[in-house]
């Protein structure tokens, strides 16, 4: 471990330090939210800057187990902004419930370090540990509202199933290691190329490993039929946490997919493509269909996030079918989805500032009168989730679909089917997204509630999310360049 290593892995290291700093700050001046917020946000700013500074040039460190490339930089920045948003949205929710901000922030930051590690790992062991480092805090955050039955119930379900899937995933990894005799991603890749060339069919051991790893990953991204934990965990968790869970671990898991499947298992594309297609179909359809029947907005958004996983898988499938655009679309989708979904959950959280308020649809009745701005922003986010232009969600969907269509015209019939299914699903999804709008603007609430005052921080975060949601829809150019670089870095 040299200084060079540390400087290359600078962002990661700094992130860890920030987490520790927050811890220290909390011990130094306990119960001072301001301090915690300041330290964490400023720290994140520094991390971001450092990422931008160091991320420009590709490099490896720690004996080739850590790697920085365009993808790393893009994903790290995405994670940082996700965490920043979460931290910004949290206080208004935690305060009335007497939950400390410090532990929340610390755990969250640790989760971020895990995600950053995934995006930067050039070694499958690092990848696994990064995954654990990302998800373990997730379990804790899900149960963060420990006096609340729902929160803890969601947490234990999430934890048990999560570690179950981790074990499965690890078992698969072990087989891959055994077969390739290495944990380094590039070496695995080469070894597999050899195998793929040597024997047309892949060894049963490898097949089993693939199966176990796919299962593990599918669980983490909440793909059907491994999605069961999602609705319960999302509904139970404190709303800001739900917001984080719906994007952070998901994007992290997709980062894992990029590093593991796209990079390491790239040579076996043709094999896992077929599985991914099936997963995509199931995930999109089931997510949307079940979401149609939900009356709790958080749960509804949980199912919708399953559906969005499906759309992203379409991108992945398109990539496996030979279209780099699929990868770009996937990345773009990730970014777009993070911002709009965080925004939506932020609004829900803001409404729940009044302790004891559920996230049922009725909560939204008459919001358009009570708090017009919140309602308008929520509408925007929902429209973006639906995929109505000119929003981020629309462009992302279009991008993924474009990739699928290209693959279709390149001769992969299944991808054409995926594209059509995706848009039909999007149309169906409009129903439940717009139903929230119906409640906000077209129904009046039974109980007349006064408007809540919301912190400046929350508004700032909401505005930022809004701006990003619209910008990514209207001026996709810059981000397009970034994602295409990132995609090129690993394919």
């Amino acid at each position, binding site marked *: 471990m040299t200084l060079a290593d540390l400087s290359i892995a600078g962002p990661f290291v700094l992130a860890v330090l920030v987490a520790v700093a927050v811890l220290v700050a909390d011990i130094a001046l306990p119960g001072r939210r301001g301090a915690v917020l300041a330290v964490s946000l400023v720290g994140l700013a520094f991390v971001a800057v450092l990422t931008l500074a160091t991320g420009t040039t590709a490099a490896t460190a720690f004996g080739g187990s850590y790697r920085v490339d365009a993808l790393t930089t893009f994903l790290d920045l995405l994670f940082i902004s996700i965490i920043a948003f979460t931290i910004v949205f949290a206080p208004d929710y935690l305060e009335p419930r007497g939950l400390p901000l410090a532990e929340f922030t610390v755990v969250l930051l640790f989760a971020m370090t895990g995600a950053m590690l995934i995006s930067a790992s050039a070694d499958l062991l690092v990848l696994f540990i990064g995954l654990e480092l990302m998800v373990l805090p997730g379990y804790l955050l899900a149960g963060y509202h420990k006096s609340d039955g729902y929160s803890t119930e969601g947490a234990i379900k999430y934890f048990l199933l999560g570690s179950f899937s981790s074990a499965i995933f690890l*078992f698969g990894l072990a087989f891959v290691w055994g077969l390739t005799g290495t944990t380094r991603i590039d070496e695995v890749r080469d070894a597999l190329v050899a195998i793929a060339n040597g024997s047309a069919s892949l060894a049963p051991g490898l097949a089993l490993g693939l199966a176990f790893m796919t299962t593990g990953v599918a669980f983490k991204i909440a793909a059907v039929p491994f999605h069961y934990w999602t609705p319960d965990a999302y509904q139970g968790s404190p709303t800001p946490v739900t917001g984080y869970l719906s994007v952070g671990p998901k994007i992290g898991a997709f980062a894992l997919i990029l590093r593991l499947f796209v990079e390491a298992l790239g040579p076996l594309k043709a094999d896992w493509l077929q599985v991914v297609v099936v997963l995509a179909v199931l995930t999109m359809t089931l997510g949307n269909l079940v979401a149609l029947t939900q009356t709790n907005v958080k749960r509804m958004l949980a199912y919708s996030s399953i559906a969005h996983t499906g759309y992203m898988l379409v991108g992945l499938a398109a990539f496996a079918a030979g279209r780099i655009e699929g990868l770009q679309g996937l990345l773009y989708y990730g970014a777009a989805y993070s911002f709009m979904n965080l925004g939506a959950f932020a609004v829900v959280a803001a409404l729940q500032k009044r302790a004891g308020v559920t996230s049922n649809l009725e909560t939204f009745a008459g919001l358009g009168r009570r708090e017009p701005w919140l309602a308008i922003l929520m509408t925007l986010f929902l429209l973006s989730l639906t995929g109505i232009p000119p929003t981020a969600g629309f462009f992302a969907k279009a991008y993924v679909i474009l990739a699928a269509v290209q693959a279709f015209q390149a001769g992969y019939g299944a991808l054409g089917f995926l594209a059509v299914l995706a848009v039909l699903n999007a149309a169906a999804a409009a129903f439940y997204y717009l139903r929230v709008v119906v409640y906000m603007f077209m129904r009046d609430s039974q109980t007349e509630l006064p408007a809540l005052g919301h912190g400046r921080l929350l508004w700032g975060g909401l505005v930022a999310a809004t701006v990003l949601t619209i910008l990514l829809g209207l001026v996709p150019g810059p981000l397009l360049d970034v994602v295409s670089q990132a995609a090129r870095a690993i394919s």
Partner: protein
Amino acid sequence: MGLADSLDTYLELAGTLFAIGTFGFLARRNAISMLMSIELMLNAVNLAIVAFGAFIPALKDRGAVIALMVIAVAAAEATVGLAIVIAIFRNRKTPLVDEYDAMRR
């Protein structure tokens, strides 16, 4: 014969252990039993890894290192898990997981 000198033996063992763990996880009602089952599964993986380390030259010594890491991870997982179990036991006064079904559909 060379039972101890064939990789397959250990892999079989690992598989069996893993399956037992899975069964426990699927069948037991008690949260802690499930946790223990997971530990069994992780150990099964560890066994496989160490076995690979012992029979595949490329992984010589590395297997052991990886195993160490995995043990550490398992420890962390256990910590978190037990913490959560205790927390929920406070709310529900029961460790039986199949009674935690306030959220469904």
